[in-house]
């Protein structure tokens, strides 16, 4: 067994520096790497390019990095829930590249899988396709999109083991598996780091080969953005 275990978030984030490109798993606040984000805030690294479907909220998730003005550029599909983000975007402090959500996921997967680029129909005929190569296949038009290049990928899983194997829970899975192995170094934090041999090899979502560092996360808040319930009738 090749061990990927590190003992702390500080060890897991060794080597990070200014002006790097980072990937962050999560959809809204669900499945975000809370511990890694906190460590990045504390580290003070700046000039970051962040690839993440969303940009957190004002006081949580990537909103914490935005608040400290550590992010230079965001690459996302939807950034609606964050006033500080809006302020920095409108004032020009923050560069924002909005891309279709499926294209974002596939640019991660392409990087993971060793494809330099792929054709997608998403965005053809819109401003997203401006300046990009387009091509017809079987009478339909497609846009050429490149794989992402990133220095670190920060992901969060439900369970993991020392070998770096990961299991996700519910819709907290989202972009996390697609980002594993898509950056030079993948850092996985887990709610529960279990002894090797505990996880059933049949049930592993991401094999440890895609993960360079894994650590036991702490104090997960797992905030809910839109708590929506129905009333129980007796």
């Amino acid at each position, binding site marked *: 067994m090749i061990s990927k275990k590190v003992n702390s978030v500080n060890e897991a984030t060794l080597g990070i520096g200014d002006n790097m490109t980072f990937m962050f798993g999560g*959809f*809204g*606040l*669900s*499945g975000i790497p809370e511990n890694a984000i906190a460590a990045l805030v504390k580290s003070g690294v700046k000039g970051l390019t962040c690839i993440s*479907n969303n940009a957190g909220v004002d006081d949580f998730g990537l909103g914490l990095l935005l608040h400290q003005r550590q992010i230079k550029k965001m690459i*996302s*599909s*939807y*950034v*609606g*829930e964050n006033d500080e983000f*809006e302020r920095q*975007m*409108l004032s020009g402090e923050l560069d924002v590249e*909005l891309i*279709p*959500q*499926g*294209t*974002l*996921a*596939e640019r*991660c*997967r392409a990087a993971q899988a060793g494809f330099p680029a792929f054709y*997608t*129909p*998403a*965005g*053809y*005929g*819109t*401003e*997203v396709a401006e300046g990009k190569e387009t091509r017809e296949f079987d009478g339909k038009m497609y846009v050429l999109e490149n794989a992402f290049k990133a220095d670190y990928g920060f992901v969060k899983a*439900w369970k993991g083991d020392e070998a770096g194997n990961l299991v*996700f*829970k*519910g*819709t*907290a*899975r*989202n*972009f*996390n*598996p*697609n980002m594993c192995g898509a950056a030079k170094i993948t850092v996985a934090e887990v709610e529960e780091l279990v002894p090797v041999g505990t996880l059933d090899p049949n049930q592993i*979502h991401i094999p440890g080969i895609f993960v360079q560092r894994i650590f036991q996360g702490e104090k997960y808040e*797992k*905030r*809910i*953005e*839109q*708590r*929506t*319930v*129905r*009333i*129980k009738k007796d």
Partner: protein
Amino acid sequence: MLNHYQNNIMLDKTGIAKRIAKEVQDGYYVNLGIGIPTLVANYVREDIEVEFQSENGVLGMGPFPFEGEEDADVINAGKQTITTLPGASFFDSATSFSMIRGQHVDLTILGAMEVAENGDIANWKIPGRMVKGMGGAMDLVASAENIIVAMMHTNKRGESKLLEKCSLPLTGVGCVKKIVTNLAVIEVTEKGFKLLERAPGVSVQDIQNATEGKLIVEGDIPEMNL
């Protein structure tokens, strides 16, 4: 301009959702957008089997959870807490969009700011205003074979949303097949907007007046059966 309709029984958002629910057929996998489309799930016939997909990674979505049973790890694309039904599955985002891009999802229902008579749709950006992003809308409209737009026929200023040509930045080109509004059911054809049904109490002339793009009216136009 909207005052003109006040004496009629034109549909509210629930009515639009009820009418669209009739388009959902047995065995369909369906992706619902945020807003009116979300309401459609409440009105699908109970004697058919349908599975709802949410692009953040769930198939087989159920109703909202009871209070105290919310799970931060189980949400929909609107970030609302949800439940799952027996037979449900979770998956990553790339797999989710493989279902969409690969045309495995049978029906996509989404809102729009504008639709053009050639099927172009604009629903993500208003120049000069804060742009939140397209989310999964561009992937959905570029890929789905069967797209129904749920929207009001006119905007808040009373201007038509069914246009000869979209004025806002596009989300997708030539992709909308059907539109259900508070006034009408319309099919997008090669010749323009073809009027299929009228909302209760709404006349063909009312619909004509509220439609900027080319409206094709052939024969008697029936009232919607809700």
